[in-house]
């Protein structure tokens, strides 16, 4: 089969190869994904990506607690516990951050997906 490839054809051949390489590289670099909050309420787990702002209510041992996801961070806003230590633990943003309301049995950890 005769190949009659012209000059400009090469541009698009290279472009096609670049797209393949680029998309593979993109996955390699961003495969980790955005950080997400793992919220454990008694024995049930909930997962929420930190890049989707929302207000959540969870019913722990003592009562309802409000957890907020905002600006790529997660924190306790309200809690029925006595000392409110969980609220003072501040916000979690990156892999390893951690907040817990032990009396209410709600634990929040932040991790990178995958």
């Amino acid at each position, binding site marked *: 089969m005769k190949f*009659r490839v012209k000059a*400009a054809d090469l*541009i698009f*051949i290279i*472009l*096609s*190869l670049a797209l393949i390489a680029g*998309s593979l590289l*993109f996955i390699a670099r*961003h495969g980790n994904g955005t950080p997400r909050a793992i919220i454990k309420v008694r024995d049930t787990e909930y997962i929420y990506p930190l890049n989707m702002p929302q207000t959540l209510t969870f019913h722990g041992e003592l009562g309802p607690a409000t957890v907020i996801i905002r600006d790529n961070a997660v924190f306790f806003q309200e809690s029925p516990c006595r000392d409110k230590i969980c609220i003072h633990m501040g916000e979690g943003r990156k892999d390893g951050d951690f907040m817990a309301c032990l009396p209410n049995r709600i634990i929040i950890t932040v991790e990178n997906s995958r």
Partner: protein
Amino acid sequence: MSSTESRKLIPFLAALCLFLAAVEYAIPKPLPFLRLGLANLPIIISLFLLKPRETLLLIFLKIIGQGLITGTLFSYIFLFSASGSFASGLAMMGAHRLFGRKISAIGLSLAGAAANNIAQLAVAYFVLFGSATKYIAPILFISGGITGFLLGLFTDRFMERSKWFRSLIGTGTEEEKQA
């Protein structure tokens, strides 16, 4: 090409697009969304036979025709295929306009395939899959690159060998394809 001739050619090529799309549908594929892009062949040919405005009309006819035949004219699927066809059509027109004689059907077909995939990935991202879309991208680009190349090759040979094509070229067009 006279306007009477082009008024005849445009629906004919559109019909050819639909026919090739039907043929493609009949061919079993490992993954349903990997397109062979056969329906692009008449569009590439039209770049050498018709004025740009007419090619654009052809693209619209192809899109609407496919929507009507598959019955998906009012669904997200149509959005998907329409954006792909539209993007690839525009890309091929642009590449042809930009490079003229320096580009053959191979390059045009690759340009179309790339544009098709990019557009469809964009729609998939916003409407369907969100961030999981990135995992489909490499497969699409690889298959698009291969099928685009092969289709371009086939179109090239077709234009060279087809008497029907040659008879139409001879009626005086904007660009002459070198034999």
